Each structure stands twice: as C-alpha cells, then as structure tokens.
C-alpha cells in the first residue's frame, strides 16, 4: 500500500476508528478543499474579476486529474479505504478522469457565456465543484451509504445550477422539476438500499456480494432482495435518464443554462453509470438472471423512445436530451451484458460519449456566448457559411453521436453490440442497430441545416420564421469573437481530436479498459 496510513499511527485505538488511507481519496479531497478555497476567494475577489474564480476552479480540477493519473499507476490492484466503503480502483479512476475532464471543459467555457447572460456569480463554480465531489464519491463508493451520499452530493448542487438563470421562468421550471423528480428518484434508490440492507444485513458491497454468492446457487434469493435490487435500478435509471424514467430530461436540459446542461448531461451520466456498473455487474452480478431481462427492456425502451422522439425536435438542447436518453439505452446494453465484455464496452462508450457530447455542447456554448441562447435549429441555419470552422466541428460531434465510421461513436456502438451478441443477447444488438439507423436522420438533418443559407425558409420546418428575424438574430449575435476564446478553441479542438482518435485508433483506449473490472471494496 502506497502512502501513509493514518491507521498505523498510535494515538487512538485501532478498533474504533477505521483505517483511513487519505491518499486513496486524494482527488475527492483536492476538489473538496478547492471548493472551500473558492468559497473564500469568492468573498475576496471583486465582482469584475470573477474570471479568476474560473481559473482557480479549473486549476483545482486539473490538480485532481493529475492525482487520478498518479493513482492510476499505483492502482493495479485497487486499494480500499474508510473501512471498505470507498475504493480507488482503475474502474473508478477511469470514470473520475472522464468526469474531471468534462468539468474542466465546462468551467473554462463558462465565463464568457455567464457574463453574456448576466449570470456570472462565484456560487456557480462552488456548486459545480461540490457536484464534482459527489460524482467522484459515487464512482468510487463501495458501500450503499457512500453511494447514496454521492448521489445526493452530486444532485443537490445541480438542482440549484439548473435554476441558475433565476430571472427566467424556463430556468426556474427546470430547477423545480429537477428537484422534485430527483428527490423522487432518491427515494426509490434509498428504499431499494433499505430493502437490500433489510435482507442481507449489510451495507458494504463486498459483504452483499458474498451473501448473494451463497444465496444464488442454493436458490435462496429472497423476493425482498430482488425488490431492493429493482428499486436501486429504478433510482439509478432516473439519474442516467433511461426510459421510462426520463420524463424530466428534456425540460430540465432545455431550461438550464447551456453550460449546466453540458455538465449535467455528461458528467452526471458517467458518474451514475459508474455506480450502475459497479452495483449490477459486480455486486449483484451473481443474481444476473433475475435482473438482466428487465434491464434489457429498459435499454430497448430508451433506444426506441429517445431516437424516435428526437426526430420531432426543433431545439438543439431537446434533441440532445432525447439523444442522451437513447445513448443511455446503448450504455445499458453494457450493464445488461455484465462482466467483463459489457463493462469494458460501456466504459469505452462513456469515454466516447464524454468526448462527443461535451464537444457538441461546447460548440453550442460558444455560439450562445453572444448574449442569446443559440438553441433552435433555425439559429444554426447557414452556420457553415458564417463560421465554417465551428460548424465543421459540430458536424464531427453529431456524426459521431450518430455512429459514423472513423468517429468515436462508431466503435462505441460496435463494442456494445458485439458484446451483446457474444453474450447471446441478440435482440439488444438488433434494436441498437435499428434505432441507430433512425438516429442518423436527425443528426444529419442538423448537419445539413448548417450548410443551408441563413435566409432560407424550409417547408418542412413549421417553426421557422421569416428571413428578417433570422437576420436580426445574426446581427444581435454580432460579435463573432465573443466566446471564441483561446481556452474555448483549445478545448473544442481537443474534444474533436479525442472523438477522432477514439474512432480511428480504438485499441489505444480499449486496450487500457479491457482489463478493468469494478472492485467492490
């Protein structure tokens, strides 16, 4: 074991205080301490210089990312801490890296956007950091209580962030809806945990795993335990916005400021899927025959519902929300298939999803940094001529989401579908392919729209208004350089590069992921 263990120090009796290896929770500690520092900084920094807070927050997140990379080297065999309640294994660290990367992108893109909408407050960064602590905790939690703590810590700041544009009714509505439905989901999750605890008498995942290992072959799995597993699944399905638990997603994504939507749609999903995979593939793995069919049905429902309803959208955020529901369905295939292929494929897809979805939202953020939310399809019409570079990047991200070859999405889907076929779950792969084909239509539609002329009115688009208003939108957005800052440029290009690398050299990342499996503590 690397690092110093407080448990070895003599000044308290070992039986009372659990062995605490603080170094294995280093990323969480860095982000948590950083949050307190930013809170103090917010009191000292004058409002006109809030950009400093963004830089500080990004520095904190980068330090945590460095800590994650440093831990990766030592985590060949994962080490547990806090009495087996938390683990720094490569599975959790991989998720941590994705969460932190997304957060860094969001933070660096935020200042011009927030300033443009008059929302630039220090609390934004503090809440974001608090939410990141929750996500990191969730990804490494190996105790039901720690997992619940992670879920709450990631959700509560997000409720506030969703309503951050507090003068706008849409944003208020988003915050309220997310709070109510998020609370509802937490109740499901907690009730499920209570039932699992009631049956097994344990909250530690390793202990629960052991109970299941004995109970399953003997045929002694009680209905209470299965009900608990089912309710936990429902609670997590809310968080990853899988159908039929997705109803909050489009409204919340649409109403929230676009930077918050970016963070919510990517980082939350990665963290929740990390917990999903750890719980279902590892802890409840031996009871797989009991939950794999319902889970597969949820996956199929998400793929069908997300992709079909996305066809009818006229708003980028709503389209990406429904696309996110569909993507959750794809990733659930990995959970339903289970270890080891399913987990690896799901992690690969999460990496791809992080690159392409963060990228797509980042382009929207840059376009929205000019004082008005760039959300409706008509705002994008003719973007290819006005700003060919941004339009080209957005096209790459959208094609990747559709799963075109040479992009990350293609291999993401390939690994998931082939894992399903190898596992004998052919219907999952078939529905995945069919719904992917449907999805090509709406991604390509936006791509083609960007190539059109700004003034064109299209017969198939009843929401479009006359050319005059479109021109005035283009004029109002006047300053094309706004939002197109150096960090913005670097980050969007990085996301595009990651999307292409994952699509052209899949083995670079897949080779790393393949050996990973979620440890239970």
């Amino acid at each position: 074991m690397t690092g110093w263990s407080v448990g070895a120090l003599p000044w308290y009796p070992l039986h009372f205080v659990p062995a605490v290896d603080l170094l294995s929770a280093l990323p969480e500690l860095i982000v948590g301490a950083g949050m307190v520092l930013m809170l103090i900084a917010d009191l000292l920094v004058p409002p006109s210089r809030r950009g400093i807070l963004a830089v500080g927050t990004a520095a904190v997140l980068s330090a945590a990312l460095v800590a994650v990379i440093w831990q990766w080297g030592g985590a060949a065999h994962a080490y547990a801490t806090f009495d087996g309640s938390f683990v720094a294994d490569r599975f959790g660290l991989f998720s941590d890296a994705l969460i932190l990367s997304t957060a860094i992108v969001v933070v660096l893109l935020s200042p011009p956007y927030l300033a443009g909408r008059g929302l630039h407050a220090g609390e934004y960064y503090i809440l974001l950091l608090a939410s990141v602590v929750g996500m990191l905790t969730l990804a490494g939690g190996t105790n039901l209580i720690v997992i619940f703590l992670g879920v709450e810590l990631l959700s509560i700041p997000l409720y506030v962030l969703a309503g951050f544009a507090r003068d706008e009714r849409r944003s208020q509505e988003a915050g309220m809806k997310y709070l109510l439905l998020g609370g509802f989901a937490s109740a499901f999750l907690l009730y499920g945990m209570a039932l699992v605890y009631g049956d097994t008498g344990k909250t530690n995942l390793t202990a629960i795993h052991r109970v299941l290992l004995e109970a399953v072959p003997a045929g002694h799995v009680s209905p209470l335990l299965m009900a608990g597993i089912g309710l936990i699944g429902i609670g997590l399905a809310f968080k990853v916005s899988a159908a039929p638990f997705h109803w909050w997603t489009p409204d919340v994504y649409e109403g929230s400021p676009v930077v918050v939507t970016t963070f919510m749609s990517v980082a939350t999903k990665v963290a929740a899927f990390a917990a999903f995979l750890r719980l279902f593939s590892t802890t409840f793995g031996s009871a797989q025959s009991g939950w794999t069919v319902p889970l597969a049905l949820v996956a199929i429902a998400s793929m069908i519902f997300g992709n079909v309803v996305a066809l009818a959208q006229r708003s980028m955020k709503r389209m990406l929300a429904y696309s996110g529901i569909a993507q959750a369905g794809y990733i659930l295939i990995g959970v339903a298939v289970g270890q080891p292929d399913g987990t690896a494929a799901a992690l690969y897809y999460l990496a791809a999803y992080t690159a392409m979805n963060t990228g797509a939202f980042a382009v929207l953020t840059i376009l929205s940094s000019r004082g008005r939310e760039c959300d409706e399809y008509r705002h994008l019409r003719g973007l290819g001529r006005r700003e060919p570079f941004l339009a080209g990047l957005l096209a790459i991200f959208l094609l990747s989401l559709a799963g075109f070859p040479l992009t990350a999405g293609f291999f993401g889907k390939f690994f998931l579908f082939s894992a399903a076929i190898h596992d004998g779950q052919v219907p999952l792969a078939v529905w995945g392919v069919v719904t992917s084909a449907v999805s090509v239509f709406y991604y390509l539609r936006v791509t083609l729209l960007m190539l059109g002329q700004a003034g064109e009115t299209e017969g198939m688009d009843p929401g479009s208004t006359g050319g005059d208003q479109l021109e005035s939108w283009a004029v109002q957005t006047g300053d094309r350089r706004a939002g197109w800052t150096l960090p913005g440029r670097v980050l969007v290009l990085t996301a595009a590069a990651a999307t292409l690398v994952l699509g052209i050299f899949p083995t670079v990342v897949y080779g790393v992921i393949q050996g990973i499996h979620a440890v239970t503590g």
Partner: protein
Amino acid sequence: MLSAYIPLLVFLAIVLAFGVGITAASNLLGPRHPTKAKGLPYECGIVPSASARRRFAVTFYLTAMLFIVFDVEAVFLYPWAVLLRSTLHLFGLIEMLVFIALLAVGLAYVWRKGALEWD
C-alpha cells in the same frame, strides 16, 4: 427471517387500532358544547390576530435554514464531547476541527453576503 418482524406488525396493528378507537370513541360518546372561543385554533393560549394563510417575509425562511445548519452542528458536538477523552482522542479532535472550520467558512460566507441582515 421475515418472521422476526411479526411483533412489529402486531405492534403497528395495536397502535392503529388504539388511535382510531380513542378518536372514534371520544367523537361518539363525548358531549359537545361548541362555543366561538372553543373553535379558535390553539396557539399557546394567545388569541389569533389574523388568518394563518398570509404571506410571510422570505427572511424567516432564510433564518430558519441557517438556524438548522448550526443547530445540527450543536447536535454533532454533544456526543463528540462525551466520547472525546475516552475513545476519539486526537483523531476525533482533528476531525471535529475540520468540520467546524468548514462551518466557519460557511458562516463567514453567509455574513459577508449579508444573509444575516434582516432587510
């Protein structure tokens, strides 16, 4: 395993039956002489001055929320203080100092942002 919960179920049934029974009995058997004063909502014996369904200043809500935060801190401090010398020792002291420091930062934040001002 589940049979261990049967006493709890019996207890629940008795509680329900007792509560419903007492309420029903006093409603059915008790004499009733309603007067205006008896019909008033009971608020520590003080005569109500207005309807309870009126708008309150949001400051009450903020103050109540801040109170709960520091109230919970006090709740944590009591068992900690009892156990500090016997079991927790230096480890417990450091842990509690970290906890209080975090709350102190919160207090400084609340103060500086003006949330402690009534207007």
